[in-house]
């Protein structure tokens, strides 16, 4: 269980995390989603006490990380940046971490087998591929058999085999009753593994929702209508809860009504329809919609709206 309360981190004038509050519960995978530079890594670093919050608090199982007598036994973390001395072997790296807690050599050997690094355990970690490095990071995270696991972009740079391995691992850890908190900037990846989502942008909380709800709201009622009487239909449909955008000459995009409702309104008023299509926004689009205003670095390309003509 991770509890974040009014968490704020400033580096000089720049605010990386801005009054963030959320709770991550046990027994499921919680996705931590946001564009690059939105403050995910900073938040995770504050959870494990690497960075001190400017204000606010963050606790794990009710305690500040620094106050936990056996931190590796409660929280295992895989950070985005590599945290291994390149000159040391994987086995010695894990042994040194284990020794700070009095964790046995048997457990070190266990986690090496668990992540499949047995053959290279005696090799210098500096020579490891990205995938092997991630596996070693996960081995360190699992060393203390922690009830909470935090992983920052664990699938970054992994091959499909490695990605599938991580997905299964995360689900397995959650099934065992652990709190699993995973950051990503890929919505599609989270949709496959997470049950709950925390979405942030520019250091602020944007959404704290179940993945099911998010998917539901993402595929919100957008209906594409093509009609020779587009402007007439538009006047009939528009209301407080319904917005209608005009696309190309005879096309409307209706938000807030189902295709059934649009069809009925057209029929009742004798309006001819050429096309009536419910639009399923992809998760990635929904995520981008949600975070559009909070993306740190924009590429200067024309948006879909300006490309298809702005609504009058």
């Amino acid at each position, binding site marked *: 269980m991770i509890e974040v309360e009014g968490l704020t981190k400033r580096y000089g004038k720049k605010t990386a995390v801005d009054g963030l509050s959320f709770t991550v519960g046990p027994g499921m995978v919680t996705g931590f989603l946001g564009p690059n530079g939105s403050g995910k890594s900073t938040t995770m*670093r504050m959870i*494990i*006490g*690497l*960075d*001190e919050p400017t204000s606010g608090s963050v606790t794990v199982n009710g305690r500040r*990380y*620094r106050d*936990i*007598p*056996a*931190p*590796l*036994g409660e*929280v295992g*973390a895989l*950070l985005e*940046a*590599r*945290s*291994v*001395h*390149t*000159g*040391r*072997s994987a086995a*010695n*790296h894990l*042994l*040194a*971490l284990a*020794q*700070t*807690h*009095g*964790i*046995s050599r048997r*457990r070190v050997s*266990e986690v090496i*087998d*668990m*992540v*499949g690094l047995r053959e290279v355990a005696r090799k210098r970690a500096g020579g490891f591929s990205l995938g092997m490095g991630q596996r070693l990071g996960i081995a*360190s995270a*699992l060393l*203390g*058999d*922690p*009830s909470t696991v935090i992983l920052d972009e664990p699938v970054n740079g992994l091959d499909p085999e490695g990605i*599938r*391995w991580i997905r*299964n*691992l995360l*689900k*397995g*850890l959650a*099934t*065992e*009753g*652990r709190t699993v908190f995973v950051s990503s900037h890929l919505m599609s990846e989270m949709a496959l593994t997470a049950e709950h989502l925390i979405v942030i942008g520019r250091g602020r909380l944007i959404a704290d929702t179940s993945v099911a709800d998010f998917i539901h709201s993402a595929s919100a009622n957008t209906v594409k209508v093509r009609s020779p009487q587009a402007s007439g239909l538009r006047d009939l449909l528009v209301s407080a809860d319904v917005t209608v955008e005009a696309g190309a000459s005879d096309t409307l995009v209706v938000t807030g009504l189902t295709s059934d409702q649009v069809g009925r309104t057209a029929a009742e008023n004798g309006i001819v329809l050429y096309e009536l299509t419910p639009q399923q926004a992809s998760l990635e689009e929904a995520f981008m919609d949600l975070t559009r205003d909070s993306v740190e670095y924009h590429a200067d390309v024309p948006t879909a709206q300006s490309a298809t003509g702005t609504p009058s």
Partner: protein
Amino acid sequence: MTAVTDAGTGGSGPQAQKSMQARSEPAVRVTQLRVMRSEWTKLYSLRSTRYSLLAALAVTIGLGILISWGSASHWDEENPGERLSFDPTLTSLSGIFLAQLAVGVLGVLIVSGEYSTGMIRATMAAVPRRLPVLWAKAAVFAAVTFVLMTVASFVAFTGGQAMMASTHISTTLSHPGVLTAVIGGGMYLTVVGVLGVALGALLRSTAGGIATLFALLLVLPIIVLFLPSNWQDHINKYLPSNAGQSILNVVHDPSVLSPWTGLALFCGYALLALAGAAALLRRRDA
């Protein structure tokens, strides 16, 4: 879901695992002693440690014996003044002046190497109170350096005196001050090592740490040479390296501090740097 077990969470839940550990082993938690054991593992498991310490040993012994041999074979050419101030102990320990670089650089690397590779994040996640790590690094490295370099100091002394025995300019451990100087060789290098650890932690960079260490030990005495001479007399003996090296002198030199006073002052400098490193380590983001 079979893939989950394949992925190898071991099939055992956190609870099952914990109760097993509780039964068979002492409680899993961070203690200062355990952090020291961890730092010992970190120290011996790097190649740079072995090479640096080997270099320090070789230089202390090899150079000490070589210079002793040189002094003995050119003794006839020395003038009476030089003969009078000749210190056979210091001569046989002269390799220490080079060995201090290897020891000091290794001290810096023990900390700065963790910053440059990112290891420091794993270290601090394991020991979030942080200070036990600094104490453990300093203590373990000090212990290793003291044992190895005191042995090297004795070997250099013995070998060096053997070189000088034929010209009857050698000395023995039973002469006053000699034993202090020989053990002092190990002690001086130990404090240099601790100073390196402190500078590594203060500056968090290998280049910065090494440059500062060299500036303190080697450059400062040179800069003082350019000061007016009556200032020099007041400042020179209090410089870190001069204070620390006073323990190596058996023949008394009025321009340096007495052996133990000098070493104590040098320890003071190192501890001051270590205290500064500790204060910053707690406060800074990793």
